[in-house]
């Protein structure tokens, strides 16, 4: 294909990345705002995370004694993997130039690469809390992996491929598959593991001040200024990207085609923003009603989601409706 036809795909991808980078803080702010309103407060406003980021980016950078390059580069790696995922996923348009370079397994791998980078940074500080957070985070990650891969499996059965564009377009072509038990179970399982992986309630409390209850926060206690900004930004982007992934896997409407027109790209942008906003709102609303789970009850939750994913696979195998 010539550069002329290739261009829209690239622009759409670039727009995707820019949208995630710019939008992630707003997603976080929106969720905080929803929570504040439900608690009867006024809240800091949707733009608050952006203000925090801007301020952190202008603050002094502190290198704790005895930390190595691992600690220094972990934030960039987390953010980088997330940006790459944002470039791969079909959020706005299908034809990402990286689409054939990494399928859903690759995306999961990149996600875990970011997690591992941050865990190593937590261990690198050599503080008690850092190690504690890393240990907890890696344990949850290890237990999340089976569920997430089985969910991928279940999703890849209808489209006969783990390639993202293939899955999305397959769902878009046969919306009937959405009401099949397989995809419903897969949706629930995926939702649980995404909550666990992004450190939301009931697995982790993102707004806790008590180190002993922390998981994600405990790993980044030593970060200050710009590096902290990068970490916070990255975790916001992770959440955004994963919400977008779920949205387009199960509601693949409004996604532009491989070689879209400008209008289609705009529609795609609006659509994904709306979907992510709705999902984030639902997530935040749900979080108001639940408390953090005891750490050693989390395996129950993950075992349950594993079971759901397994059922999803078997269901999508056996319920295979003659089409």
């Amino acid at each position, binding site marked *: 294909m010539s550069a002329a036809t290739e261009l829209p795909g690239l622009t759409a991808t670039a727009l995707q990345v820019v949208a995630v980078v710019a939008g992630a803080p707003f997603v976080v702010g929106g969720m905080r705002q929803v929570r504040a309103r439900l608690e*009867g*407060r006024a809240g*800091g406003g949707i733009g608050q995370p952006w*203000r925090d980021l*801007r301020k952190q980016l202008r*603050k002094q950078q502190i290198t704790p004694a005895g930390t190595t390059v691992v600690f220094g580069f972990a934030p960039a790696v987390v953010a980088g993997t997330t940006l790459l995922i944002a470039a791969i996923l079909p959020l706005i348009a299908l034809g990402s130039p990286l689409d054939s370079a990494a399928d859903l397994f690759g995306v999961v791998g990149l996600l875990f690469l970011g997690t591992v980078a941050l865990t190593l940074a937590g261990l690198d500080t050599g503080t008690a809390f850092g190690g504690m957070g890393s240990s907890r985070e890696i344990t949850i990650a290890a237990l999340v992996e089976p569920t997430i891969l089985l969910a991928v499996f279940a999703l890849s059965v209808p489209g006969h491929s783990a390639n993202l564009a293939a899955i999305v377009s397959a769902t878009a072509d046969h919306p009937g598959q959405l009401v099949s038990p397989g995809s419903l179970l897969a949706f629930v399982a995926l939702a649980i593991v995404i909550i666990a992986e992004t450190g939301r309630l009931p697995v982790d409390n993102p707004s806790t001040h008590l180190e002993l209850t922390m998981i994600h926060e405990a790993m980044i206690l030593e*970060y*200050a200024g710009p590096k902290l900004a990068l970490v916070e930004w990255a975790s916001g982007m992770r959440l955004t990207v994963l919400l977008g992934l779920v949205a387009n896997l199960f509601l693949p409407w409004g996604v532009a085609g491989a070689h879209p027109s400008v209008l289609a790209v705009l529609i795609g942008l609006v659509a994904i923003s709306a979907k992510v906003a709705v999902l984030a709102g639902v997530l935040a609303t749900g979080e108001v009603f639940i408390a953090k789970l005891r750490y050693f009850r989390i395996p129950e939750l993950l075992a349950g989601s594993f079971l759901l994913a397994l059922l999803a696979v078997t269901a999508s195998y056996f319920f295979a409706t003659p089409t």
Partner: protein
Amino acid sequence: MSWIGKIGRVGRIVEPASDPPEERVAPPTGVCGSLQLRHVDAGSCNGCELEITGAFSSVYDAERFGARVVASPRHADGLIATGVVTRNMHQPLLNTLKAVPEPRVVIAVGDCACNGGVFAQGYGVVGSVADVIPVDVQVPGCPPTPQQIITALRTVTGR
């Protein structure tokens, strides 16, 4: 489900915001509308702690002005110190201030923090917070009301 109904019935309980105070401390660069604070109890009677808790509660909601209390001083833009500085808390207070990245503010809350209050010249007391570290904002009162604390915070956040 009944919870949602309850939320609907309760509605907004936050006090209406008064218009921002005129006089401003020179805010740390970049700190416009966003202020993370690490709280240090240098030897307080916990009266000020209760009021601070109130200031960040649903009723006064300091968060709407961009102020937040964080766990790690590395994440903070400054300290919110309460109580007279006791001998045992002298060094920890200095350590905590050292751990806060520049630029940083120090907000002393309560009479004890400002001038020693009733504990001044106590045998276990080093002095007021201002005697130990440079203080940018002082919130008098024993204890100060949440409203006063929020006003002080707003002089820094500028919202």
